[in-house]
């Protein structure tokens, strides 16, 4: 039994997000939208910070008991945190998931351009981005502003 598994018990149903860079676990919760997680009374969330890791030295782990990360959510997690591994757990059985990259991201990320219509108070405009992975950026579909993928965590909504 590895030292990390001693920290918290295994789950029988849900999602385990592993190999998250150390202290970035809270970003994962933001990307998954904490408010929507809260609305499901059966969901338990366990965030492990700064756990020893052979691969990363130190890492975070997020265990989502009774929550299956959707394909769209998995794609965004893989874009923002390329090292992440996503494991679905069903009846104790572990299934590794390798999501592709998203073509678009709706909501979740605030536009870095302060004069963008999505940042105008009370306008019912939801952010929408095109992913330009080959250029390492996402582009706001409304105002065209580019945001580097590694800067996405700084602009998460919530």
């Amino acid at each position, binding site marked *: 039994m590895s030292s990390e598994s001693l920290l918290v018990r295994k789950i029988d149903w849900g999602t385990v997000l592993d190999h998250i860079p150390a202290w970035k676990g809270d970003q994962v919760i933001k990307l998954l939208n904490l408010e929507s997680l809260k609305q499901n009374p059966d969901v338990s969330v366990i965030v492990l910070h700064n756990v020893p890791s052979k691969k990363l030295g130190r890492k975070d782990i997020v265990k989502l008991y009774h929550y299956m990360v959707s394909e769209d959510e998995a794609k965004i997690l893989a874009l923002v945190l390329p090292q992440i591994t996503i494991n679905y757990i069903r009846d104790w059985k572990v299934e590794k998931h390798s999501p592709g990259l998203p073509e678009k991201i709706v909501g979740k990320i605030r536009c870095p351009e302060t*004069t*963008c219509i999505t940042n105008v108070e*009370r*306008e019912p405009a939801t952010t929408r981005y095109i992913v330009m992975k080959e250029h390492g950026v996402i*582009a706001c579909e409304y105002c065209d*502003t580019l945001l580097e993928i590694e800067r996405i965590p700084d602009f998460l909504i919530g």
Partner: protein
Amino acid sequence: MPSSLSGGREGVSPLGLKNTLAGRDIISCRDLSREDAELVFRLAEEVNSGTIHLEDTLVGRKVALIFVEPSTRTFQSFYVAARSLGAEVLSIHDPAVSSIAKGETLYDTVKMIEGYGVDCIVLRHPARGSARFAAEAASVPVINAGSGSQEHPTQALLDVFTIKSKLGRVDGAKIGMLGDLRYSRTIPSLCYLLAKYNGVEIFFMAPHLLQVRREVELYLSERGVTYRKAVEADEIKEVMPELDVLYVTRIQKERFPDPTEYERVRGSYVVDAKLLSYGRSDLGVMHPLPRVDELSPEVDKLPNAWYFEQARNGLPIRKALLHLVLGGAE
């Protein structure tokens, strides 16, 4: 309007060509093809020469002009164009005396004005992305008349029309863009439209603080458009002899987030007879106007000054565009 409806009512233009602009939103020059632009230019030419008359082709139609930012040329030319085509015009020109001053959102303004049975909305708004947002909210075509520092596609149409009529071609043109390339909305639109032509070369002539935004560079490089940057005064002088056109822009003081940054670049360039002496004798000088102190009045007297003719071209271009978007009767 919803994208599924865009381009829905395609008909035939007065030129006998397919009207690819009927019912479409005009939000960004990224969305316009060379053929779309050439259709507008050909109709504007015919209007200018008097061979085609568009008067009263929009009788019974309503055009809403919503201008949430100051404007002289764009508002007036859209107003005169719509009226001369016979359309009824509803306008919000002074937001201070409309519900916008009470905090009404753009979304509500668009839904409200649409309820009055308008056939088209022409929008100027300080927010980037405002035109696309309004187009998604509206069920009628939206024409972007300036979306903050983002774009001004109808200005680019009249700019390229001016280049074409004065230079005789757009393909292979060498265009210098001098001034505030960062906050000017005319520069991105002009670049996106020029990118639809072959062999165009663009020279961005500005200090680092005012250089063109990254998304414009990315768009040009993805389409294989050659561009160079000239930052220092000496580099600008070196570039001058290569140019067919020098397009000058005002420093957009109102868009600087930090006033100290504005003070750093204020007065950093002036186009005068001395600077033009480094260029070819037939170099054309363009400016979207208004100017402040970046373009000396001494240039007005020179044959190089194209900018007043450029401003006049706003009317035939906007007449042609309104006619085509609204699918006006012949």
